[in-house]
């Protein structure tokens, strides 16, 4: 029999892991198409704010989540415009997006803090299961369909995709925006289901950890499920163990562990290296 505490931990890890999973899946698609988006933290916090504000105003948490997706998508398209169309530095553009998202959510969210959310979603809801389904669907799409082949090729060798008449720009826009939609929902989950309220900075670094999960999952949507569960468990434990260990030390844990996992899996990831064209703007030959 599974002991009670283990079951609780697993269920709670699943709950905390859900936003990590959604955001990581989005980042995996963006990076598979060759675009790093470091703005996940910013897209998530915008999602969290808009989900809460809309859910509170309409009384419908699901509409809140749709608004969160839209906010994430709009933020991501800004990054796509700079990184793909203007061929700017993707790393810095993503950082700028993170700053902008945190700033905007902080400014717009003033006055929304401390308001409880009526009819919030439960912590374990269809959304969590949908995350697992989404991972399976995105995995199938990536590895077993023509669309997936095009996405992977765009990240590995965009010139080839261009040769067969598919627009690199279009593929990259689609993937980056998909990443934004998912990151938005991830943030929305935090504010309408996990902790039904709005607090400035409530994503607390989850966006960065989602990016790390994408990396050590080897950009594989199914492996990201394990990563999200693992970090979900760590986040849960960092709340649970506060009776024995100082909360600040516990809250360091997921971040320290990220470095540890990235270092430990660095060697084994050589088989599953980053997409070749990751971070490199694509310049078509003809001008």
């Amino acid at each position: 029999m599974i002991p009670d505490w283990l079951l609780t931990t697993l269920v709670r890890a699943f709950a905390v892991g859900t936003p990590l999973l959604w955001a990581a899946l989005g980042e995996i698609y963006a990076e598979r198409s060759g675009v790093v988006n470091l703005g996940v933290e910013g897209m998530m916090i915008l999602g969290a704010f808009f989900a809460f504000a809309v859910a509170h105003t309409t009384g419908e948490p699901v509409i809140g989540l749709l608004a969160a997706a839209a906010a994430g998508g709009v933020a991501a398209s800004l990054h796509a415009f700079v990184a793909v169309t203007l061929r700017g530095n993707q790393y810095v553009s993503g950082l700028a997006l993170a700053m902008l998202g945190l700033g905007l959510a902080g400014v717009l969210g003033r006055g929304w803090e401390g308001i409880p959310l009526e009819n919030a979603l439960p912590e374990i809801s269809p959304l969590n299961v949908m995350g697992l389904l989404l991972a399976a669907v995105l995995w199938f799409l990536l590895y077993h369909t023509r669309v997936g082949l095009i996405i992977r090729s765009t990240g590995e060798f965009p010139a080839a995709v261009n040769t067969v008449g598919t627009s690199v720009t279009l593929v990259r826009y689609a993937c980056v925006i998909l990443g934004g939609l998912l990151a938005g929902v991830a943030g929305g989950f935090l504010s309408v289901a996990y902790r039904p309220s709005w607090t400035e900075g409530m994503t607390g670094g989850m966006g960065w950890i989602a990016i790390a999960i994408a990396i050590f999952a080897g950009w594989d949507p199914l492996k990201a499920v394990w990563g999200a569960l693992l970090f979900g468990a760590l986040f849960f434990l960092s709340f649970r163990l506060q009776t024995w260990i100082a909360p600040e030390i516990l809250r360091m844990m997921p971040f320290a562990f990220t470095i540890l996992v990235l270092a430990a899996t660095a060697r084994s990831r050589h088989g599953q290296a980053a997409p070749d064209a990751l971070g490199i703007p694509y310049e078509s030959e003809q001008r």
Partner: protein
Amino acid sequence: MRRLGPLLIERDPVPSASWVLLVSVGAVVAALIAAAGVFWAFGINPLTAYAAILTGTLNTRAAPEIFRQAVPLLLCGVGLIVAFRAQFWNIGAEGQLLMGAVGATAVALFAPLPAPALIPTMLAAGFLCGALWGVLPAVLRLRLDVNEVITTLMMNYIALFFVGWLIHGPWKGQESFGFAYTDTFPRAAWLPLIGGTRVNWIGLALGVMLAGGLAFLLARTRMGFEIRVLGQNAAAARYAGIDPLRTALGAMMISAGAAGLAGVSEVAGIHHKLLAPDQVSLGYGYAGIIVAWLARGSPLAAILTAVFLGLIYSSGDVVKVSLQMPFRVTDIFNGLILMFLIGSERLLPYRLRWAAERPAGSQAGRDPMVPPRPDTPASRGDGPVRGQEGGR
């Protein structure tokens, strides 16, 4: 080459300084126009808002505050320039700053030193603690190819919670009720301020000296040469016998140490105690990235760009006090400025010329029709360039 009214748009792989300046200023102005939307959303006329910011920051009483904010920004920014020139994406200045503050606090509160030795020791300890905080990401990147953007960011969060732990736990001060902070430093550990302002002149002098010193280091020394070669072409650097680990580690330790000094300057110059991390640094480590980027890799230019970012920061106070909006508005300014700067880099390899001046293509030595090689931005050698660091 294209025609735009009376102007010709030509390619120019080596943009002139004035063109770079024009594009940068244009990007900043465009970002501020975009930020106007935020004021509008709050029901404040953006023109009124910017007028209030200008009159609120650029007056004799408030102007020193710009320089007070510029000190940590300059220290973080010049350091970041060195790391970026080595193509090392140090996003961890925020954490390195905090660790510098921790080092200085440890000396100020616990070291049994004679008063005159206190400040120099604090500066050294701050530099060292910051620099050490940068070692792990550098080693992981060079030995195991672990992406440094992620690791330096994670180190920021670790430093943040570490400071939180110190002030709530072992270093919690006697007189702190409600709010957590350490005991106040002894007077001998306070950095002297320029009369009537909150600008500590030691921090300011260190920043300016560091800018000059690092400009010299990058341009004239063997180490600077190695950093530049490593940044422009890692394969060539290895071929030339440059040890990538030693060079990048050196660049990173300078970068992280400078951010550590910013931490010393904040706790010893302003607060005189270690307090909550979001009060020790108002995001100077992240804003330092903009200082470095706007300076296009030139440590001396960072003096100007740090003052500009100082202006943005001091506008945060004006926004808070006279417009009743959150200080966070500065994050929106910062994010938009950085975003527009990156976007506008597309314009750099072009230039505008009067069409009537001369027939195109007749200039000696340069054929405007020849597009620059794809690696032109890197070979331009003026600092933070496009990320060609694809692999991780």
